[in-house]
């Protein structure tokens, strides 16, 4: 059992090269840089951040079924997307900030709802996250019903895809968001030991000297921001945030100092592989969530049998 998660960097680099060279049009400089490189960066961003945040939340909320969407953020962003499409064809530049604005709105709702006599508790976070998810999902479907856009297109946009067309401005904004995300991830990583202890119980954490309430609040806000960033750009990619941390734990144990970086690298790799699969196997590009679910389900089944 390899004990050093940074070794995962090598397969990731190999997959990056693979992703850059595969696809219609062969190996041409222009295609690689204009079309595939942004796609690869998006894939690393989405897969890495979702898996990292999934790992953090599973530890924080002591729940192996958590994924980044449990906090209700993705459904808010999805609603933002479907709302923006309500008015016919909208320039793609509009969508990410619109989606992010609504993910902030759902963050605000979840945060406010989760307060029980001025304190935030893990259970109330999960419950209010689920509540807001239902609310915004229903509103999204309502918006889709009245939308002028064909339904297929909306599903394609919402269910996750890496084929975003970048203009220089949106590319710049994405790179800035990517760098901010890396900083936020590093910040979360600095609390890895606190997350370790908190994952063994809230009372254990308090009695050892951790300010759990401040920690939960901070982790929740940062996780929501990061999830909002990802969903605003690529839609809701399912399973990655849920399954990858479990793979990391199977390989490296339970110490967050190992599984968080491992989750990031594994998640990026897995998402890029899924993306290669999604765009090369069928004449039509498959929605990414479908591919990740197809990979995720057998893995989960295998893990279940080992229990």
């Amino acid at each position, binding site marked *: 059992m390899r004990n050093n998660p940074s070794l995962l960097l090598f397969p990731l680099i190999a997959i990056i090269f693979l992703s850059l060279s595969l696809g219609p049009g062969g190996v041409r400089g222009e295609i690689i840089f204009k079309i595939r490189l942004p796609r690869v960066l998006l894939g690393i961003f989405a897969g890495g951040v979702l898996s990292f945040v999934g790992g953090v939340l599973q530890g924080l909320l*002591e729940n192996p079924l958590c994924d980044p969407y449990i906090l209700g953020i993705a459904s808010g962003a999805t609603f933002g997307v479907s709302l923006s499409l309500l008015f016919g064809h909208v320039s793609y530049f509009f969508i990410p900030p619109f989606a992010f604005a609504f993910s902030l709105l759902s963050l605000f709702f979840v945060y406010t709802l989760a307060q029980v006599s001025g304190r935030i508790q893990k259970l109330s976070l999960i419950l209010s996250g689920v509540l807001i998810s239902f609310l915004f999902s229903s509103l999204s479907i309502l918006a889709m019903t009245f939308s002028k856009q064909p339904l297929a297109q909306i599903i394609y946009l919402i269910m996750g895809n890496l084929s975003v067309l970048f203009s220089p401005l949106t590319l710049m904004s994405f790179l800035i968001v990517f760098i901010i995300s890396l900083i936020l991830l590093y910040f979360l990583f600095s609390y890895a030991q606190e997350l*370790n202890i908190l994952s*063994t119980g809230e*009372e254990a954490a*308090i*009695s050892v*000297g*951790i*300010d759990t309430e401040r920690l939960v609040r901070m982790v929740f806000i940062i996780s929501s921001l990061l999830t909002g960033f990802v969903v605003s750009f690529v839609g809701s990619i399912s399973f990655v945030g849920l399954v990858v941390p479990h793979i990391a*734990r199977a390989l490296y144990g339970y110490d967050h100092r190992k599984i968080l970086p491992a989750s990031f690298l594994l998640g990026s790799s897995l998402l890029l592989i899924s993306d290669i699969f999604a765009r090369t196997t069928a004449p039509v590009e498959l929605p990414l969530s479908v591919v990740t679910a197809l990979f995720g389900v057998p893995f989960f089944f295998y893990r279940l049998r080992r229990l």
Partner: protein
Amino acid sequence: MDAILLKELSFGYTKENLFQNFSLSIPEGDFLGIIGPNGSGKTTLLKLIAGLLKSTSGQVLVFGEDLFHRKPKERGRLIGYMPQESHFLWNFKVKEVVLMGRYPYHRRFEREKREDFEIADLAMRLTNIIDLKDRGINNISTGERQRAVLARVLCQNPKILLLDEVTSHLDIGQAIEILRILRHLNTTYKITCLFSSHDINLAAMVAKRILLLAKGQVIACDRPDKVILPELLEKVYSIRPLITTHPKLNIPWVILNLRE
């Protein structure tokens, strides 16, 4: 100076307060056994002292300073709290769990140092689980897991140990072993111990003082032979057991009787 001084504490889970203007002083080096019926406030009292619960009024003074005026890590260095049961969702290794007790001595990003590993080893040796250090925390017995949690608490190097009915889920062999360890910690390292128990006889075996609690009030707080008396036990538990003296130790011994 008192290790713990509770001043006019008020606290309740509902509108009705369980503790009302509750005061108690515990000198340093004390070994206090807390007994009383369910609902009397044993667990609540320990959680209030540990800082896991906040009183609505009054103060908890630890070595002269208000508990909540101290920073969380400072509290972690002073007070160790051990709950009745510990469930671990993730199967950390025993040594990983024990090392978590060193957290109050670390700064952000500080990795464990050799000193931490040595202290963890010492704690595991004291609690007799050193041979289990590489096993998963969920792959050992309940008694061993309790001792692992105790080892973690000991790594905090606390001056005060709070133990909430820690022997309830242990068999008699495991219970005696834990009590022996606690007695050793109290006499050798002068750690102030407070522990709650349903078993009055076990408490009397190790405690220097017994606190008899009922409905959030002090019924008696004194040496075992001054507290474990038939009239007091009947008042609190509504049964009248026989009280005799332990044949080997000079402590009161409760003998239960089905017929009265």
